[in-house]
């Protein structure tokens, strides 16, 4: 606990910016996808990411690049194609930089 206080004091003392995004468990879920020991099924990952998203929304904070795209990937894995498409569209809206890749993914989904 003392360590945490010290760490916080150091952060405050160094004049750092706040994080741009509300990260939730995004990168932990990514890791869980690949980790043999901590594998988490898509349904559970979706549940946790959607819960993080609600928290971010309630605090009026943006979720990071890739967040909705990854959700779309998880929805696709469990056969929820509509929600998958919707998630890719949301990623595109939030981050126009992703347009080309999201369109690529969407066209592949809708032409198979």
């Amino acid at each position, binding site marked *: 606990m003392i360590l945490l206080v010290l760490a916080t004091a*150091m952060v405050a003392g160094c004049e750092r910016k706040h994080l741009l995004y509300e990260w939730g468990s995004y990168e932990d879920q990514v890791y869980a996808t690949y980790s043999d*020991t901590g594998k988490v099924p898509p349904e559970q990952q979706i549940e946790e990411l959607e819960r993080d998203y609600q928290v971010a929304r309630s605090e009026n904070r943006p979720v*990071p690049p890739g967040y909705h795209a990854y959700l779309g990937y998880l929805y696709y894995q469990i056969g929820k194609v509509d929600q998958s498409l919707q998630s890719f569209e949301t990623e595109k809206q939030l981050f126009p930089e992703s347009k080309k890749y999201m369109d690529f993914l969407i066209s592949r989904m809708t032409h198979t």
Partner: protein
Amino acid sequence: MLTAYCRTCLLALVLALGGCAASSSNIDYTAFRESKPRSILVLPPLNNTPDVRATYSFLSTVTQPLAEDGYYVFPVVLVDQTFKENGLINAGEIHEVSLAKLREIFGADATLYITVTQYGPAYMLLNSQIRVSANAKLMDNRTGQLLWSGAATASDSEGGNNSGGGLMGALVYALVKQVASSVGDQGHTVAHVTSQRLLQVRPNGLLYGPLSPFYEKTEP
């Protein structure tokens, strides 16, 4: 939940350490400033270590520092999956794909090539430590120019009795140990620190990207 909380503390601490460190910049940023990349495609890292977990462990630590720098970061799992669906299974094959092709498929401005050079136990004379080291280079997808390159390392024994890293080192040590015990893959916890050191904006590091409020305002 505890894990997530500790992770946040750890990252905050790393950011603090990075923010305090001061050294002069001696990298030529001319090409970087001219290129003005908005989006970065991170390829699955090459693994030059004996631990097969290194590639994906490290890959799942890179989005946060790059996005917080102010770049759009392509969703790493989907990118990896796209390569796999096209028959490119390992990082070595993926690193061979031409920049033009990457730009065509992903629409990315720049590509980040990472190599993990150490992941896991490094046996010292008196004790062992968990160490993760990596290097990276950022390439412009249009011109093929090198925009930036760098390297970083971290270990769970920083500030331990033998290395005498002082208070800051000791803090890193305590927090890393705490997180490591709850995750199971100690290398992954250290990888977070290495990744932050490698990719956050710092002297000789990456520049702020267009999605950051500090873009083109703060010199590294």
